[in-house]
């Protein structure tokens, strides 16, 4: 708790700096990453982030110490080389995009690890900090480094807001962009530069192995909540900042903890929650929709049974008689009965169960839809009368009043269904 207060009251100026840095970095990578996620190029970000490792090592060797300017430049160049190679290979070979990306990732990362091991064996005392580039260590960022990383983040945000319209076009319809004369290759180049920069500024805090998660996951999680680009970008940035700060906090409280994995843990948690609770496509929402639909079908069945009994001049049915009609759904039918009774659609007395006036009208509609659909299948789609019942059993719960009106009109307000049963209507 003390740690929590100490961290989040920002008494320590170095913590303020780190949090500020993580925020800028999070916004930058979430914005760039969301575009790359929408462009279905998520793997490219992963390849680039692994591919910067040789550049980091080269920067370290040239500087002889952990100088962020050398490291950032080296990382950028090595990322740029990987990006260039992947598009060159795509143009000049028949290899598929995923095999190219996978090869680039593993080749560059392999070289990087070899170089890193060689440097560690060299006995340079400065080498200790180099390991943090693998999994990231936000707390280890010096104040001076922050200006570099923060400045680059700001540059990314600036260019992105300038190119918002162009990037939208690049992802949605690059052919159209070319047709109206926009330099789409140049725009793609600028975007790739931003993507590499977003990776480079994240390597100190998040590490090369997991940087792709910070690019892609915020956008993927935010996509569950919105269908518009601007809210999507804002939400992705928010998720990214949130998990960035939480990850930094954990690595602050538990000294041996690297930042990157913890940021990814929080990001994944947000993505998981989005997947479960999303109001549009979340699993809870789908579960509820299905449950409500099933409940409606049971209620419909019960009302239909009462209506058909009435057609056979039997005013009331007992619960046992209805159960006998739907022997596998006794519990659901009993539950539906309670609900329909409270809604006033069904009346119960000592002699049994019967429909109210409103209930009768509703039940009549279900039977009418069933028989209209049977007739439609039989007349318009040439399906034999003994094959139409199954489909009508489903459609009677689904058809809307608009479709009902269309069916009526199309079939010219028929009186009998294919089984010579009356299609019931309210008499006005």
């Amino acid at each position, binding site marked *: 708790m003390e740690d929590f207060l100490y961290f989040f009251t920002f008494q320590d100026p170095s913590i303020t700096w780190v949090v500020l840095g993580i925020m800028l970095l999070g916004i930058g990578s979430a914005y760039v990453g969301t575009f790359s996620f*929408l462009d*279905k190029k998520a793997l490219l970000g992963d390849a680039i982030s692994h591919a910067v490792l040789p550049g980091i090592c080269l920067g370290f060797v040239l500087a002889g110490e952990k100088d962020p300017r050398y490291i950032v430049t080296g990382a950028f160049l090595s990322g740029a080389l990987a990006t260039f190679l992947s598009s060159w290979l795509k143009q000049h070979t028949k290899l598929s995009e995923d095999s190219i990306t996978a090869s680039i990732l593993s080749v560059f990362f392999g070289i990087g690890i070899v170089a890193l091991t060689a440097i560690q064996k060299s006995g340079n005392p400065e080498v200790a900090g180099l390991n943090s580039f693998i999994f990231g260590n936000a707390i280890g960022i010096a104040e001076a480094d922050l200006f570099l990383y923060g400045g680059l983040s700001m540059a990314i945000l600036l260019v992105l807001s*300038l*190119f*918002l*319209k*162009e990037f*939208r*076009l690049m*992802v*949605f*319809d690059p*052919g*159209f*962009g*070319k*047709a*109206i*004369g*926009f330099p789409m290759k140049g725009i793609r180049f600028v975007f790739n530069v931003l993507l590499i920069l977003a990776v480079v500024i994240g390597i100190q805090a998040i590490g090369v192995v997991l940087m792709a998660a910070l690019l892609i996951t915020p956008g993927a999680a935010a*996509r569950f909540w*919105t*269908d*518009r*680009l601007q809210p*999507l970008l804002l939400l992705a940035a928010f998720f990214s900042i949130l998990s960035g700060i939480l990850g930094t906090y954990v690595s602050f409280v538990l000294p041996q903890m690297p930042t990157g994995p913890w940021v990814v843990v929080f990001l994944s948690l947000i993505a998981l929650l989005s997947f479960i609770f999303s109001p549009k496509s979340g699993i809870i929402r789908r579960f509820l929709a299905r449950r409500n639909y099933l409940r409606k079908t049971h209620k419909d069945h019960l009302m239909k049974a009462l209506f058909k009994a009435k057609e056979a001049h039997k005013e009331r049915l007992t619960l046992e008689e209805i159960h006998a009609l739907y022997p596998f759904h006794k519990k659901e039918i009993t539950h539906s009965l309670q609900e329909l009774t409270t809604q006033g659609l069904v009346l119960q007395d000592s002699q049994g169960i019967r429909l109210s006036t409103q209930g009768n009208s509703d039940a009549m509609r279900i039977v009418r839809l069933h028989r209209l659909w049977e007739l439609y299948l039989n007349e318009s789609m040439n399906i034999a009368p003994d094959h139409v019942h199954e489909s009508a059993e489903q459609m009677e719960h689904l058809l809307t009043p608009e479709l009902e009106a269309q069916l009526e009109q199309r079939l010219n307000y028929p009186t009998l269904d294919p089984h010579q049963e009356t299609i019931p209507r309210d008499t006005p």
Partner: protein
Amino acid sequence: MITQVPNPILEVHDLTVSYDQQPVLWNVDLSLPAGQLIGILGPNGAGKSTLIKSIMGLIPPTSGYIKIFNKALQEVRTRISYVPQRESVDWNFPASVLDVVVMGTYGKLGLFRRPGKKEVQIAQEALEQVGMTAFVTRQISELSGGQQQRVFIARALAQQADLYLMDEPFAGVDMATETAIFQLLQDMARTGKTVLVVHHDIHSAMNFFEWVIMLNLHLVASGPKDQVMTEELLRKTYGGKLNLLTQVTDLIRKQDFNPLKS
């Protein structure tokens, strides 16, 4: 049967186009009059879309050139409007109908300038013309195929051009919508716009187009509808593969270089 016109709005001169060195259009040479509704007909793989894409500069020609309004494409781009095939984009992209139609104004806006009130106004008028006003704020993935197609046509209208190139705008569109869109295109032609449409249905082509181009790897015909929509030319266009030409195409594809490149 190829009719050339004086002062053409579009001139395609001896155009040959290849994909990965496989020729898909051979020596197309035609000129088109202004202010007409023009159909491009031909079987699958005849090179109809390729012709449109080369006019738009999306595919570089192997040889030959194209002149629009008697100028090079770069000089007149803002006067040309383009409707790509509906399947060419991902409709799950997070955008509203209005967002997509406003893209039609990007060309005149140029780089870096954000669309403002005027552009939204233009987009809304375009949506009204295609009868999609009720869908302005709708997410594009929720639209039916025909509605998506109308959004694309509205985007082309928002480009406010003089020449319209449309790649299969009636694919997946129901009859009523097809007729409504055709009437809109006829109105546009009447006000002096030239509309070039890749189309596959000969029956409706008969009813609506004034000028027809028939393709089958090479140019079979280009001229006023009454003169070119003959049984003989239709048979030439749709009547099976051109065996010899296909064999030559294969031969060229197997070379180590493209011998057609000038």
